[in-house]
């Protein structure tokens, strides 16, 4: 089995992540697969799903200082 991409050590399963569970994807050739669920896909698909997962955090790029907290 090959190691994962050189730029990062690991990728987590996007399907399990959406259930708030960290499961490292296994990697065979160009495909990643999950041992906990039936997800499989290439690195691009994993990244796309991760981007989708983080999109629910609407304020992830918003600075909310003391004044902002007051009005939340």
């Amino acid at each position: 089995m090959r190691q994962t991409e050189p730029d990062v050590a690991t990728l987590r399963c996007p399907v399990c992540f959406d259930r708030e569970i960290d499961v490292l994807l296994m990697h065979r050739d160009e495909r990643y697969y999950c041992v906990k669920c039936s997800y499989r896909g290439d690195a691009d698909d994993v990244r796309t799903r991760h981007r989708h997962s983080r999109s629910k955090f609407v304020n992830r790029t918003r600075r909310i200082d003391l004044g902002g907290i007051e009005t939340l």
Partner: protein
Amino acid sequence: MILNIMHRPDRAERRGLFELEQEYAHANGIRTTILMTAESLADPAQVALAKEHAAEFGDEIGLSFHGLTHRSIVDLIGYGQEALWLLSLVHKRAVIEHLAREFEDSFGFAPTSLASYHLDASTMRLVRQIMPQVRAAVAGCFEEGVRVFHGCNHSWYLFNEGMPWGPWYPSSSHTLRPARDADDWCGIVAVPHLMRDMVLSYEGRNDFWASHPPNVMRGMGYEGEECPYDRNLIDMFRWQEQFNGGYSYYNSFVSTAWLAEHHAIDDRPEVAQSLYRQQLEYLGELKRSGNVQDMTLTGFADWYRDHRPIGSTEAFFAKELLYGSGKHYFWYVDANWRVLLDATQGGGIGDLRPYVGEVAVDTGPESPALCYGTYPYLIQSQHRTGMPNHSSDGARSTALVTIAGEVYDLGEYPTRIARVDRGPQATVVEFEPVAVGDGAVATIATTVELHRNGAIVYRRKLVACDDGEIEVCERVKLAPGITEYPQPLAGVTLGVVDEAPTEIDYRYDGRRLATSSSGARAYARFPSVSTRVELEPADGRRWTARAEEGHLFSPYVTLSMTTKLSMTTKLSMTTKPSDGQESALCVRLSRM
């Protein structure tokens, strides 16, 4: 706001990352507390670095009980694992004595501060015997338990829910419970391992959402090399000063493993390093502007003893930061209980820990609790259903309001916190009024009083009403537990008091007790948490009482009290909202 920055050097090969962490803190004028592990005590270079930084920057050097997989520990007890609190008493003692000796041999003095993700009562007793000089400890991870266990694919055995979110005086019998008085105190000031998001800690796994930038990366709450959430969380804790007499506390404790390639982060280590640096830069800015005071861990413990007497209360008005939901929660803790009010569910209780029962728990193989260090709940709506899902609801509190013959559940009416008043005897939380009903509508204002004597009073003010009169049924649904699964309820007793008490023992038979006379009360006793819960009128109104036994598909005790409210005069252009009547119902917790 007072700040502790803690670093935990470990393996020799990550020494460079430890140096980097220290450099980030010192560059921003922040002292650190260096908590040495078995790994780093075995690395002369890291020992030397710690001594150098203590001399040059005034950093404190303490001891960490984390990472008991080092060869020296395996040689000592025959195996290695992560958690001191889960070892047998013999092994706990051996490890503490070994590390205390190693520390003194390395530094020539005994540590006054310690760190562990959890320090159960038996471990705390051993610490007091072996290292009586210790004054401060990182001793718990706020709300780490069921969700973190699931989140780590059922592999992280830290069941540590039900503690204060900020520093506390641990009691001797259960270290997550704040001590009642000096006699009840274990003798060490404790701080939590990280400050947590006080909304997302309740709603999900909170090892994502803490004062730890790589944890936020783990949760994916960032974008590129930007993570304003890290600073937003700091400011949320600063914002709490107004509710706690000007006091607020923050810490961060990032170990070197999180700045290297990590199994739970799908990004480059350089991003984790950058975000950690940015966090310390912001804290440095706040220090320079006089908004943050950095201390060492032991320095903080001494300050805490001088400024926050045992028995102090603490509150946290939490607003949701990341999803943009607008949700409000209110947390309150004192020696009697920890309570969470959920504004999105009408101000009902979402979590209730009855400290008044003084449940004693040690963890370890000799203890019946085994790995479960959690302080038990009586209400936990996230673990135990909360709002109705299938046939019925679960643990929560609410009011059922009858308007023109239709019943409405206040839990279905989201509101927001309008005002908080932290008085000496009670903390008052006022919610924005809600308009309830489909046809005929009643506008109801809820105010909750959290009294220091273990009583919570729900006040419902009828602000306006189309139908003239409504019925209010205050209702509390309870079950003791420590995880999401039900515990056996054998031994639980429930009853109502009319002229004389009527009482039944719990046998999952769906029975109901009711009374119609004035002066009625409903109550239940829960032996596993040594707590009696009683509903009683806190006004002069006529109330009727009910106590309901559940069954195996709904294993709870439901206590309720019902009264009627009307508008004293018909609302018109000239009358004021104060013309409506108000009810006040007390939920009282006491030790059995």
